């Protein structure tokens, strides 16, 4: 019995030496220690031996069983270790190949810039208004204090649908539509498309503007400067200098053109700013009393300011685009860069 056990143990060890796969080890384990295994069978024979030998043999058999189980474990560990090493050694990827990207798209740069602008003004408590793109002459001009046959109409190359209907040349008509419906205080911005019959490197017949209007009891020109300064600082950086200079818009008085320090040359002068160091960025002013009268407000009680800025202009400065027409060609090589 003892010899038989030791012989089986030696046989098992021998077989384990030859095992190179986990599967083989499992087979060896089954052959010797499984339910029908050789050692298991032998152990079952313990009942047949004498009473006094039984504990000794039982003890020995158990030792051998435990010992074999350990050897099997070791052998498995050796095989696994070898496999791990082999895996690390022999399997390697070209990690320089591009990853498997799920294609994602991009928003149009005008949308991106417009959202950024909107975000700043929302943060300042402005709400968003909208108006029609095909507009009545009344809202686009007359209510904005630009009567028919007024030379100020020369500032707008207008597309007409009929004598009374046109493509809005600016987003300013939204001012009138909002004031007609609402009483002060008002604090809105109106982003949208505008149209002028003009086409070259710096003009497209369609473009985008953001109009702003703030009307209330004690709104001053100083407040206009304050709001626009905050805007420019948030959009282009705290250090950007700006200046306000007199201009003319029939619907504001006083009117101001706002220049900011050239973002390209930081004021030193370059081609983009025609060597002036300044870039025109906004038109603005205090709402003209005539406009208040037209919408039925009392100009003696109410003051306000309005401003408008070109989104393409901001986007061109932000991304270094020098031909405005690129926005509307929608070439993927362009759109893919935003």
């Amino acid at each position: 019995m003892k010899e038989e056990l030791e012989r089986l143990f030696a046989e098992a060890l021998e077989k384990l030496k030859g095992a190179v796969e986990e599967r083989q080890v499992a087979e060896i384990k089954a052959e010797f220690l499984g339910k029908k295994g050789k050692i298991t069978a032998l152990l079952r024979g313990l009942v047949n031996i004498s009473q006094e030998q039984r504990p000794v043999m039982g003890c020995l058999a158990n030792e051998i069983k435990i010992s074999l189980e350990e050897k099997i474990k070791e052998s498995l560990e050796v095989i696994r270790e070898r496999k791990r090493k082999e895996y690390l050694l022999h399997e390697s990827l070209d990690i320089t190949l591009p990853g498997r990207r799920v294609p994602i798209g991009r928003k149009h740069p005008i949308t991106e810039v417009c959202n950024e602008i909107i975000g700043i003004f929302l943060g300042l408590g402005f709400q968003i208004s909208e108006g029609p793109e095909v507009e009545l002459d009344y809202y686009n001009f007359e209510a904005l204090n630009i009567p028919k046959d007024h030379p100020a109409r020369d500032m707008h190359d207008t597309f007409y649908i009929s004598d009374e209907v046109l493509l809005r040349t600016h987003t300013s008509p939204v001012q009138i539509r909002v004031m007609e419906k609402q009483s002060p205080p008002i604090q809105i911005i109106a982003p949208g498309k505008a149209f002028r019959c003009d086409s070259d490197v710096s003009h497209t017949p369609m473009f985008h503007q953001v109009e702003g209007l703030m009307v209330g009891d004690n709104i001053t020109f100083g407040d206009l400067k304050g709001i626009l300064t905050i805007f420019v600082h948030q959009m282009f950086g705290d250090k950007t200098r700006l200046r306000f200079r007199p201009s003319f818009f029939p619907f504001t008085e006083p009117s101001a053109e706002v220049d900011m320090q050239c973002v390209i040359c930081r004021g030193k002068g370059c081609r983009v700013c025609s060597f002036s160091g300044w870039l025109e960025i906004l038109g603005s002013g205090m709402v003209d009393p005539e406009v208040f009268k037209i919408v039925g407000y009392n100009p003696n009680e109410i003051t306000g300011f309005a401003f408008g800025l070109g989104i393409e202009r901001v986007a061109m400065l932000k991304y270094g685009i020098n031909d405005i027409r690129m926005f509307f060609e929608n070439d993927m090589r362009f759109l893919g860069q935003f």
Partner: protein
Amino acid sequence: MKASFNWLREYVDIDFAPDELGEDLTMAGFEVESISKVDANLNNVVVGKIMSLKPHPNADKLSLCQVSTGGHLYSVVCGAANMISGDYVALALEGALLPNGVKIKNTRIRGELSQGMMCSEEELKIGRDSQRILILQDDGLELGKDIASALNLEDYIFEINITPNRPDCLSIIGIAREIASITGKILKIPKIEYREGNEKIDKLTSVEIHDPELCPRYSASLINDVTIGLSPFWMRRRLESAGIRPISNVVDVTNYVLMEFGQPLHAFDFDLLSERRIVVQRADDGDIFTSLDGMERHLFSDTLMICDGEKPVAIGGIMGGLNSEVSENTSNVLIESAYFNPTNIRKTSKKLGLQTEASYRFERGVDYGGVIRALNRATQLVLDFCGGKTAKGIVDQYPSPVFPKEISLSVNKTNKILGTSLKKMKVKRHLKGIELDVKDLDRDKVIVKIPSFRMDLHREVDLIEEVARLDGYNNIPTTTPVVRVNTAGKNPAQVSQDRAKDILTSIGYYEVVNYSFISPLSVALLNLDDEHPYKRFISIKNPLREDQSIMRTTLIPGLLNTMKTNVYNKNLNLKLFELGTVFYSVEHEKLPKEKKMLSALATGLKYGESWSFPGEGIDFYDIKGSLENLFEGLNVMNFNFLPTPDIPYLHPGKSSIIMVDNTEIGTVGEVRSEVLEGYELSDTVYVFELDFDLMVKHTFSDKKIKPLSKYPPIYRDIALIVDESVQFKDIYNAINKLSNKLVDNIQVFDVYRGRSVANGKKSLAYRIKYQSYERTLTDKEVNNIHEKLVSNLVEKTGARIRE
């Protein structure tokens, strides 16, 4: 408006550099768009004086001059004939390189030494005269002095953007006045005086105004026996600096005064005026008149004409006529200085398609108080440079004179609007600086008398702007207003727009922005019948181009054209979308109906060119999947795709209308090849178009989550063989109908045709999820339910179970 630095300096002392002046003007509201330096580039050309002159011994047409430059005497052979001994000339010496490329060397001409050349204007490139040498006016010229500095040839031309409210600055003196107010210097208006003749003008001519509304003022002077010729060099040079071509001395004088004072003038050949008189009256509709430029003009009943005793001789305030033009034979001239109704000038100028320096100023409003001064100035200059003598007095028809307006200005209100704390003293000083007459009214208010050249100032707020402008916008304190707390910045539709763009970009679509106007042809290519809403477009009366002449009713043409641009640039795998406005004409409405559409296009490879993804082309289910992603992301719940063969530009078997809550909100499908051919495209292209406004109304905002079951689900599959004509949805609906409440989800996981499935049939495999929210289900229980479902299904649909 072009303004010469040198010319400006005649009216106001400027002791700083041109670029500083430019900066100051810009900050005062006169935006200087550019300053260009006029360089003479005339080295070694100096002032010389002809000391003696004799014929060349060997050539008839040449003469031999001794020219002094103060220190030296030079021998110069000259071919011109217009000089005499004692004339001052521009002498180019050895080493000079003239603008026309000629290099001056000492040389012998027909045996005589020539040590330089006396130059013509044309040779110096400072004028057009090439026949004669330039004779300089002897007003203290220094011999030997560099010609460029002697003649003030170096100059700076300011291109200034004059806003429509400031016609007074469409003149050199107007701008000089602003400079004077900036610098605090005195404005020097030229002295105007001349000797009048003896014969009273009333005896020689008359002016009648038949339409004082269109012509409130008309004045004229008469100068006899003028000699038509070239105007002086300096005058021609100034006109050219202002962009005006010199013509002849009389015409140049009128243009010079136009630029100097901003008052347009016109000179008539007096002898060509029938009955030697002027009548100002309207034309008749359909009259034809030939203007100075030789063009036939068709007139209207509101065209104001300057006529003589029998016929029109000028279009009032716009352009003179060929029939009364001053020519080289003219000896008597009548000079007109008038004020015309700005609105009517503008209307007429637009109707005739004729804009001139005169009409540009009249339509903005000239200085009605400066009419006579300009007339006198022109008369003076004609006498100076064209000779002749005037009649005694002038004609001035001014039926209803305009008197200066007075406006009161409150300093408190000024400060209230500007956010400043200006003192009354300072306000007064600013206003006086631009020649306004200011008087105190009370502690707060002043009364301001407005001069006739500032017709733009007619309300208190206009004066407030002047105060702000003169004090400097940048001196106004920057403040922040008290802001109300607003509830919502964006309305739900605006939020949905943002969301839709986020979703589509996250699944691979690029946003495009196309023009709102499209080509009528691009709509025609969609094969729509006349009743189709996309045909209800509105047209632009004055489009830039035919292919931008109608307002879009659909975004699809724009997307197809974008595809075309990209295909041309070899960008072949495209997923594009646009969210934009479309326009439909509405009967009896002035404005079209505008609404937002959301449309997309997909073509090419599903994943683009890739080493690791299969090179599969995009198909219908890709774009449909995009829509499902979109609806889910926007919380559009009850959407449904209905097959339709009726969309004329989409493949009848691969298109669908999209329903939400039983409302049609859009279409999706494969674009028909004949439509693509029209756009010069090929390939397979899928598009969808959604009525975004309508869709937003069906977004479900009150979303509540379903509780999660604590018990494991059990899945059972079922594969059915059905006819090709049977659709996924038919079986799906049938399963749904037959399902008991434990059926939690039904999913299709395979569509199969081919081996083991007969021709004309297909196999649809569904996976059914059984789930209880109360207990653990047993296999046995689920098997029972599932078997019953299968047998019912077979019975109801006639499908066969695929084993």
